């Protein structure tokens, strides 16, 4: 636990990739395989289900510190993080525990699940009293299932590769899917024998950056393949040895949630892996993302929902063909293979992503302007000679999204941020005018510069009208231009409207609150115009 807590502190303190990889490399070379397995598990973003409600932890910690609940709450809202607040108010323990990470997890954390509340409390208090500040912080993150640190899985793979000599691709592949963090798994993870395979195992996804400059900078348009950028769940569809597996981008196996796709597997040739998007699709049209959300997270699907929100697979790419990994073949070659497959697969749930052809970038830009009417987010540009790479790469694949819908709204509530933004008011709720009153239209957290955040934070502190717990009602004075990707009717929101991916585009210091948009104007942005 000492080494893991100190690794966390090092990773947390630096933004330099080389220093992070060095720290990881050192950790993996010094740790036992059982500790290393758990470290990989947590560092790659996997989480154990929370076993003790945070509320309980808060009460126990306040009890030990001898402070009332409201004072703990005040502290937490300043610190911005529950696990850290607890660690900060606990009596200091300078020596810390020497017990290994794997033991803490397997012999303490995992046994908490089936323990009585009394036993849980005893175990947690005993853990706290044996840990130093840094360990208690990491421990709290682990038991609350909120452990996060600024390393990508890519850096973890790089460090593991450096320690073991196994290739980063093999390690990345072995990290996909379901696995148990045991010493045996870790031995396999860093094995230099690359012949391993697993029928369900997906490939790491190839991701794209947003195109920032003009498309002309990409060179000749004939070197590029353009497709619509759909808004669904990016997934990998696997058909091997007569079985079907559907993985989401979050590396979650979701086959059982989409019986339509499981059935589709019957018509897909053996030894195929398709990169595509799960889309809600009905009567020849894509449905809004919010409809798909009704199916995400549901393990058992009622018949009614299946009828209301059927899904399809929009196929983008073929990365395994006839049982062979074809990721290093050019995009153009893989596209041809995908088209050949589409020609023989006759299933209403299988859609081949259409190519958007254009003679020039200007022509393509004009087609991109039509995105909203196709219910897509814009275009995807892929270099025809590009391999299917690992992770978010620069140069070969680009997202070329359309400009967002915008609305000028007034800041009405503010709440403290967390993590790096702890102690600052960074989470905002915005309203638009309706009949002389402001109705909530969206919440947004991102889009302001650090300087602007400071200014808004100072404004919030000086102009608080009311405080409800962590939320402050502020004088309706500041106007921001909000951008969002989609808008639709919603009965769950007071305004009757739900927006997708709202963020602040700019601070309209030139606009008084009275001139912000009205709900009527916002309704006009709904598909089909006004209500």
């Amino acid at each position, binding site marked *: 636990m000492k080494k893991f807590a100190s690794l966390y502190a090092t990773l947390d303190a630096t933004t330099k990739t080389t220093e992070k990889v060095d720290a990881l490399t050192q950790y993996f070379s010094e740790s036992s395989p059982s500790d290393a397995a758990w470290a990989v598990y947590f560092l790659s973003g996997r989480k154990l289900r929370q076993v003790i409600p945070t509320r309980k932890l808060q009460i126990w910690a306040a009890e030990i510190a001898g402070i009332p609940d409201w004072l703990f709450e005040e502290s937490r809202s300043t610190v911005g993080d529950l696990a850290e607040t607890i660690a900060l108010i606990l009596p200091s323990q300078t020596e810390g525990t020497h017990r290994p990470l794997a033991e803490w997890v397997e012999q303490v954390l995992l046994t908490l699940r089936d323990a009585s509340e009394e036993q849980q409390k005893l175990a947690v208090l005993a853990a706290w009293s044996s840990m130093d500040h840094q360990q208690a912080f990491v421990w709290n993150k682990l038991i609350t299932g909120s452990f996060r640190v600024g390393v990508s899985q890519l850096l973890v793979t790089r460090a593991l590769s450096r320690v073991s000599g196994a290739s980063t691709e093999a390690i990345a592949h072995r990290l996909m899917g379901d696995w148990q963090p045991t010493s045996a798994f870790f031995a396999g993870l860093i094995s230099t024998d690359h012949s391993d395979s697993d029928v369900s195992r997906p490939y790491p996804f190839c991701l794209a950056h947003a195109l920032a400059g003009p498309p002309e900078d990409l060179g000749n348009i004939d070197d590029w393949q353009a497709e619509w950028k759909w808004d669904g769940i990016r997934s990998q569809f696997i058909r091997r040895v007569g079985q079907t597996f559907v993985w989401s981008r979050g590396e979650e196996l979701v086959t059982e949630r989409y019986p339509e796709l499981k059935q589709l597997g019957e018509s897909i040739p053996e030894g195929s892996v398709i990169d595509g998007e799960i889309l809600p699709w009905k009567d020849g049209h894509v449905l809004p993302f919010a409809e798909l959300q009704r199916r995400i997270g549901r393990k058992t699907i009622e018949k009614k929902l299946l009828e209301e929100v059927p899904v399809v697979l929009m196929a983008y790419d073929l990365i395994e063909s006839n049982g062979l990994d074809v990721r290093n073949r050019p995009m153009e070659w893989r596209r041809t293979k995908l088209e050949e497959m589409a020609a023989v697969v006759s299933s209403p749930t299988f859609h081949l992503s259409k190519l958007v052809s254009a003679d020039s970038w200007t022509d393509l830009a004009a087609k991109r302007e039509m995105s909203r009417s196709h219910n897509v987010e814009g275009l995807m540009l892929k270099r025809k000679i590009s391999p299917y790479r690992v992770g978010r790469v620069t140069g070969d694949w680009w997202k070329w999204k359309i400009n967002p819908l915008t609305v000028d709204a007034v800041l009405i509530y503010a709440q403290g941020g967390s993590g790096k933004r702890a102690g600052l008011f960074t989470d905002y709720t915005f309203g638009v005018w309706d009949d002389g009153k402001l109705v909530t239209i969206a919440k947004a957290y991102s889009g302001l510069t650090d300087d602007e955040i*400071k200014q808004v934070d100072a404004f919030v502190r000086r102009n608080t009208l009311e405080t409800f717990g962590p939320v402050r009602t502020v004088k309706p004075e500041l106007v921001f231009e909000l951008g969002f990707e989609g808008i639709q009717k919603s009965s769950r929101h007071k305004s009757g409207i739900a927006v997708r991916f709202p963020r602040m585009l700019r601070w309209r210091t030139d606009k008084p609150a009275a001139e912000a948009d009205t709900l009527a104007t916002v309704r006009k942005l709904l598909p089909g115009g006004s209500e």
Partner: protein
Amino acid sequence: MTTHLIIQTDRGLLCPPGDFYIDPWKPVDRAVITHAHSDHARAGSARYLCAQVGRGILQTRLGSTAMIDSLAFGEVVTHNGVQVSFHPAGHVLGSSQIRVEFKGEVWIVTGDYKLDADSTCAPFENLRCHSLLTESTFGLPVYRWAPSSEVFAEINGWWQTNREAGKASLLFGYSLGKAQRLISGLDASIGPIYLHGAVERMTQEYRAAEVSLPPTTPVSMAPTGTKWGGAMIIAPPSAHHSPWARKFAPVSTAMASGWMRVRGTRRRRAVDRGFVFSDHVDWPGLMATVKASEAEHVWVTHGFIEPVVRWFRESGLDAHAMRTAYEGEADEPEVSE
């Protein structure tokens, strides 16, 4: 209804029977100053009164034309029947608590203070009073300071590591007080210590007041071509990311401040290291001070006013908020430390 001995006005804290202000933020006839930090000592008043040992710094800060009288710690002056005296606050050189007594009633205005060891100024003196007016910059139980010897060990360890890696160590701390306290704890056998101009000016005042500090050199006096690897440079936080700081590369940066106790603030500063090191009282210190004062009435100024007031009320004290123009809820190390 009894009138209070100290009240808040739009010019600052006023003692009505004595007709003087304590740390006024607007020009007044008579200003009694707790210490020379800019949010407490503002220019423009007709006459100033401060503790003797802090006079030099105050004069430097306010300009040579400011009319400043001073008193030794503990010396009492009576003005309009009000007895006024200065007592060490342990915040920076010359920082004082102001004791005000009128017809047997005693008020203490702490100004900024801390209880921790600091060889660069006189230690905080616990005084008894009826009403205590305390700061609350770090008035939450998450703010607790480790002994300064531990922090110095961390700082010197960081310096040593940087030296071995051929890097300079650039340490940020407020130029009056924090910087000199940092210098006092540095192990000069590790390497040379250089100072930013703003820090240098204040350090000269400390040396003039015979505070013992290891030898230092102003950065501006370093010959061109100086190799900065292994050196320690002390600078105010405003120098972070400035063109001035570029010449020290390769460099490791650190910030010394009480705000570094919280991870989010530490990360926001974008420095390589954050040392939890404050010249303000921490939560246990605040509790201990109020208790030792035996005050029945507690007035809470700049910082976490509401929670501190509520806490003392729930502990059975008569506690109130006192709004001041000192750097209230500021969460930025440069302004408040």
